[in-house]
């Protein structure tokens, strides 16, 4: 179990933020399109994490 913290949480947050930015009323069109693009990227990350996750159940062995 490595410490890879490009986590689902972060990607989901990016996705949410892209949506928020996109929805704000006076965002220039270029920025709106950029937000959309970033949102899609974050979406792909989320999807990848969701789809490719492999669950591990491990039991610690005690050496005492």
């Amino acid at each position: 179990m490595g410490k890879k913290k490009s986590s689902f949480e972060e990607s989901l947050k990016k996705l949410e933020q892209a949506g928020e930015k996109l929805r704000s009323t006076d965002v220039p069109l270029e920025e709106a399109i950029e937000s959309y693009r970033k949102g899609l990227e974050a979406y792909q990350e989320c999807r990848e994490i969701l789809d490719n996750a492999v669950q591990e159940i491990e039991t610690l062995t005690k050496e005492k």
Partner: protein
Amino acid sequence: MGRAPVKVGQLNQYIGRILKTDPILSDVSVVGEISNLKFHNSGHVYFSLKDQNSRVNCFLPSRVFPQIKCPMEEGMEVVASGYVSVYERGGYYSLNVMDLEVYGIGQLAVQYEELKKKLAAEGLFDADKKKELPPYPEVVAVVTSPTGAAVQDILKIIKGRNHMVNVLICPVLVQGPAAAQDIASAIDELNRDHPEVDVIITGRGGGSMEELWAFNEEAVARSIYRSKIPVISAVGHETDVTIADFVSDVRAETPTAAAQMAVPDTEQLDELVEYYRQKLTEDLLLQVESRRQKLEAASPKAFASGIQTRIAYEQMNLDQRMEEMTASLQGRVSTASQRVDLLGEILETASPFGILSRGYSIVTGEDGSIVRRAEEMSKGDKVRITTGQGSAQAEVLEVNKEDESWARKNLPSKNR
């Protein structure tokens, strides 16, 4: 002094045999307070039982230890059952414990309340010390018995809800004298060696108060409080509330409930992510659409149509005004005409021709002027007599200037 001396070992052996065969000492229960408690690496437990004036060594063999349900703590009053034997090498006797029970049920309740009070005073239960559970954990550690029902329940729920999160099971004793220390060490160890763990569930399935006791012990409470990783406690059933529940960041009523709060449902996450994607596309389209509408509103076509609308409006306005004016004019005309008719009638009644029709006549001179007095005329003047119907040409035969008028002669005088 008839007998020959014996060896030390022989003496101890002999005493041992005597004690072993004694009907009382071979099966005895002793009440006392635990002290000098030592858990040896070998698995054996050594302690003393004491009362006010006396103490006895006790030995709890490792093979018996797993069957002991009673918690063991310094100062705890217990009933130890077993047999008395001699330790030949040391030359002392001890109580070989086969079973251990808490002396008096009330004792545990008192301990519980005392510890609760003490830890509360220290701030271990403070709400502002509670850590939030991570919404999307990647590793969940489960500190419980590897063979108990709790671990099965937890795994079942986690596997059913979430196919992403990894589970690290930390097998510990959950009852008996060594349980508390075991649980505490596991939590400490997770914090030290497994920083990837996002949340810890510790607990066990239901049981008697004694069986759950480890979760009422100070060592467990302190380790939970120390833990940098959020801890969910899940001990027994809904009605069992342990000290661990007060210290933990979140108390789950059961191990099943703990698993449910520890991990999100991945199906819901899936839906959430899809929802966001769809919303993203919709929002972009909305942005573009609002731009398009603005552009359209500013186009020459829209401008022209705007003007045309305006013109049509003005025309309607104009027509309406015109109609109003006409109507108002007509009203005035009709009022005026009525007035004229009325005046005409009045005029009619005042007309001299009306008088003529009653028998009067008008005499006009040659120049057309009305003759009001006889002296205006002379003999031989040609005059015109106009009657109510038709007129006549006449010649003056005689003028009587002084004549009283016909009226004066013929009408009766009022003065007479």
